[in-house]
């Protein structure tokens, strides 16, 4: 080990949503003086508005902290934040790969959750030292000893000496900082060896271009070096190296064992892919770091400009988002019902929701999203295979030999009281239980094999609702499997609206069809004529509702010459009409598209 490496610790924080990861990270920044109280917003590291609102981390944030330890030495801590959602498992695994250790934060009132467990397993796969920390001990319902036992029983690591802290109240943070030094090993690696550095994240900066977060394993990097990205095989000249403290601070050189950033005039984050290995162009390493995967979208949906919104504006915004998000794909497509728009690919549902919300909030766009779809493998009679992610593109059924759908392995962790309800839910979603384990007396993990298309609609909402928020879910793709799938179309006033088409399992078609028809009936306003809403498979109608014709829409009174009141009412009505989308003769409010996707407790 090089002498300087003795004073470096690279670690991340693993925690379930709401267990206090961001608060702890903030507290560490504050205690080490990396940010002053004044700069301190709640949860500094979650700097996207949306992230703060949802209490989750989407983009990584990393920071170098300087800690003056009790042993009199100055330590450099590199805190690597990890995204906190199942959609971003790959990104999590790459940021873990950049560390020697992980702080495992467990809520003393709730214990270990599925997402935590999944990430702990990832960390163990990367041979990380795990430092358990029990948080929220200030709460009256805290049961720190229970939480310790759970960690030992479930994960199998010693938790007896886990610091008991309250990140919120700033209790025992010092103990965490000291434990990081003693429990997490320093990095190793040869600063004079051939350069081998891991990209564990990147983002786009208007001035610098793509900024790469990197961990140097061997060798060193400085301004002027010509680097090669081993998987994309592209060459760049380094324009800046530095560390985040937490703002970017340029430094002269990054050496083996260190974590920092580099800039190299890269234009798209897609060119600096997470997991790729950086080496010197002149003197490259022979073996890239293991674990590189190109991220593949799992969920697709259509995004269309809403009434009055310009196609070009949506396109510009999508391009801007893509610059910063290598996992997000889009391409133009056309819908008969919605006109020109885009088919977009996402890692998962949350990823999709985030992009949609950013389009609406950051870019202030009016958009319509169509039903999300997974990618189906369609095997034709002539043996050719098609990958279909837009239900409208499904070929004529007579040409199809069979359709395959993606399956996932889903792990659901929940209090045992809810097991019955969730098993019912999973069965209803075509899940097959592979096994069930009691991790403590009261907590259970259910392992299911389930079609992804059953997970993407509203499974998570249903799980949360049926477990009163205590259930957590983690899933990963396993394989494609032949399945009895059909395309269900929706017709309004006997005209097919392609944007509502979806691929469903035959056994679920009736139920789904009924649900969609009922929902549409709720949101489609009355027209001058009756509007039949039909769900059909091919020519066969499987569900039907009718929006009655309206017969009265009149305000008789117009009193005392008060025109303004009447005018306001008419103006409001006109505004309402603007939000409608005309499909043939039927006006459909834009909410209709989301309404058919929402989980409904009553249904």
């Amino acid at each position, binding site marked *: 080990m090089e002498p300087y490496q003795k004073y470096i610790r690279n670690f991340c924080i693993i925690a379930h949503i709401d267990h206090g990861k961001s608060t702890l990270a903030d507290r560490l920044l504050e205690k080490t003086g990396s940010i002053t109280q004044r700069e301190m917003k709640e949860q500094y590291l979650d700097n996207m508005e949306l992230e703060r609102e949802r209490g989750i981390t989407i983009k990584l944030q990393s920071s170098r902290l300087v800690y003056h330890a009790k042993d009199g030495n100055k330590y450099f801590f590199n805190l690597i934040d990890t995204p906190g959602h199942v959609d971003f498992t790959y990104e999590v695994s790459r940021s873990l790969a950049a560390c020697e250790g992980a702080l495992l934060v467990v809520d003393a009132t709730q214990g270990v959750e599925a997402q935590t467990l999944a990430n702990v397993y990832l960390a163990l796969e990367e041979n990380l030292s795990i430092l358990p920390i029990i948080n929220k001990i200030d709460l009256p319902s805290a049961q720190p000893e229970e939480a310790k036992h759970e960690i030992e029983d479930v994960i199998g690591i010693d938790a007896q000496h886990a610091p008991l802290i309250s990140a919120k109240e700033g209790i025992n943070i010092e103990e965490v900082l000291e434990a990081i030094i003693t429990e997490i090993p320093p990095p190793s690696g040869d600063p004079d060896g051939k350069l081998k550095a891991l990209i564990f994240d990147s983002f786009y900066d208007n001035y610098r271009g793509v900024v790469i977060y990197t961990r140097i394993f061997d060798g060193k990097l400085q301004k002027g070096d010509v680097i090669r990205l081993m998987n994309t095989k592209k060459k760049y000249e380094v324009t800046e190296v530095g560390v985040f403290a937490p703002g970017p601070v340029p430094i002269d050189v990054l050496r083996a064992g260190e974590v920092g950033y580099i800039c190299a005039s890269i234009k798209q984050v897609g060119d600096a892919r997470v997991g790729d290995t950086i080496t010197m162009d002149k003197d490259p390493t022979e073996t890239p770091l293991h674990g590189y995967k190109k991220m593949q979208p799992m969920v697709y949906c259509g995004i269309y400009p809403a009434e009055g919104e310009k196609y070009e504006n949506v396109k510009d915004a999508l391009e801007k988002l893509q610059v910063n998000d290598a996992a997000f794909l889009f391409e133009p497509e056309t819908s008969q019902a919605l006109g020109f728009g885009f088919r977009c690919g996402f890692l998962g549902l949350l990823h999709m929701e985030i992009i949609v919300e950013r389009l609406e909030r950051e870019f202030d766009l009016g958009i319509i999203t169509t039903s999300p779809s997974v990618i189906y493998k369609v095997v034709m009679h002539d043996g050719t295979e098609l990958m279909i992610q837009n239900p409208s593109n499904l070929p004529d059924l007579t040409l199809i030999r069979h359709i395959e759908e993606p399956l996932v392995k889903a792990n659901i962790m929940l209090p045992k009281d809810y097991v019955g309800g969730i098993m019912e839910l999973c069965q209803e979603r075509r899940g097959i239980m592979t096994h069930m384990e009691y991790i403590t007396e009261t907590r259970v993990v259910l392992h299911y094999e389930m079609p992804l298309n059953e997970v993407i609609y509203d499974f998570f909402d249903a799980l949360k609702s049926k477990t009163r928020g205590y259930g957590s879910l983690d899933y990963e793709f396993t394989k494609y499997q032949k399945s009895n799938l059909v395309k269900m179309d929706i017709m309004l006033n006997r005209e097919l609206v392609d944007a509502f088409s979806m691929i469903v399992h035959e056994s679920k078609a009736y139920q789904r069809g009924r649900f969609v028809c009922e929902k549409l009936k709720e949101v489609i306003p009355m027209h001058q004529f009756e509007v039949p809403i039909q769900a059909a498979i091919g020519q066969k109608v499987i569900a039907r509702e009718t929006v009655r014709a309206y017969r*009265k*829409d*009149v*305000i008789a009174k117009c009193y005392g010459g008060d025109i303004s009141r009447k*005018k306001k009412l008419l103006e409001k009505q006109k505004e309402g009409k603007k939000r409608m989308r005309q499909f043939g003769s039927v006006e459909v409010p834009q909410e209709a598209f989301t309404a058919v996707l929402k989980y409904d407790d009553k249904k």
Partner: protein
Amino acid sequence: MTRSNKLGLYIHIPFCVQKCSYCDFLSFAGAPEPLMESYTKALIEDIRRSGQRESIVDTVFFGGGTPSLLPVSTLEQVLSNLMQHFRFDEAMEITVEANPGTIDKGKLNSYRNLGINRISIGVQSLNDKVLKALGRIHDAEQARSTFRDAREAGFDNINLDLMFAVPGQEWTDWISTLENTIDLAPDHISFYSLQLEKGTPLYQRFEEGSLTDVDVETDRRMYRTALRMLENAGYLPYEISNASIPGKECRHNLKYWSMEDYLGLGLGAHSFFCNQRFQKEDDMAKYLEDPAVKERYTNSRTDSISEFLFTGLRKRTGISLEEFKDRFDVELFHLYSKEIDTHRQAGLLILNDAGTNLLLTEQGIDLSNHVLSDFV
């Protein structure tokens, strides 16, 4: 019914014996006499400030509230102030709204002597059960006798206000109210479909679920049946909710629907004058202190066009294409060809036989908001 270019005056009297269960108008129940006196003082100050002698006034309308609650002397005081500050036409229409239970033969005789020549009686129903549901202070017999008293006092222009689609009102209740009203032979009948307004006791009961709204089919059947019965009895429905013996249309209300000038005097009263819409102070304490204009808005051309259309289409004769062109210097069909086409095809708008006027069909009346909202 052509444009008179003369000014209408609306005088708001915001006092009632008690608040009806459906009412969300600006009025106070059980106001003490001193408040009425201070209000009269403020109203007279309002009249004095608003007074002008350029236009000729040909209609005055005392609305409320319950104007018939005012002592005759007060009404006289207000009227004489009006005459002092405005120029009155020779052929005046002076209407007072009167509610059964607040007026007797003596008062009606005095009204005649003051020059009041039109009485609008808030009958609402001739069914005691319905009257009770509406929270009226009178029964059907009192309403009848108020009408007879007015006739005996010499009024030859009497309106009776009716309401249908009242929760709890049976189909037969409405038909008998109509029959009995027609039997009384008033000169003018207004018939409003009850609107549940937020903040009213009736609305609250509806929210709580303790009363069911009349279903839309019944509501419309009640409306159309009323039209037929009134037409058969010689009344001409000249506006969505108003019918009269020909020649006895309410000239004052027609000003609202023809975009003619009117000035509103009194608490929260609305005006349209010289292309401006404005409202008087609607906070009682503030009005008493300073009866000023609260909000003033100058209509843009677009405002005026849309208002002309959505008020004008309420009239049975609809909108005169020629008048539209005169007023706005553009052909109506030019401006709204798509909207008019759509609604004509849907059978909601038609041209009259002569092709001079655009009007709502009967179905168009039922869906008038749907049609009119395309013109705002």
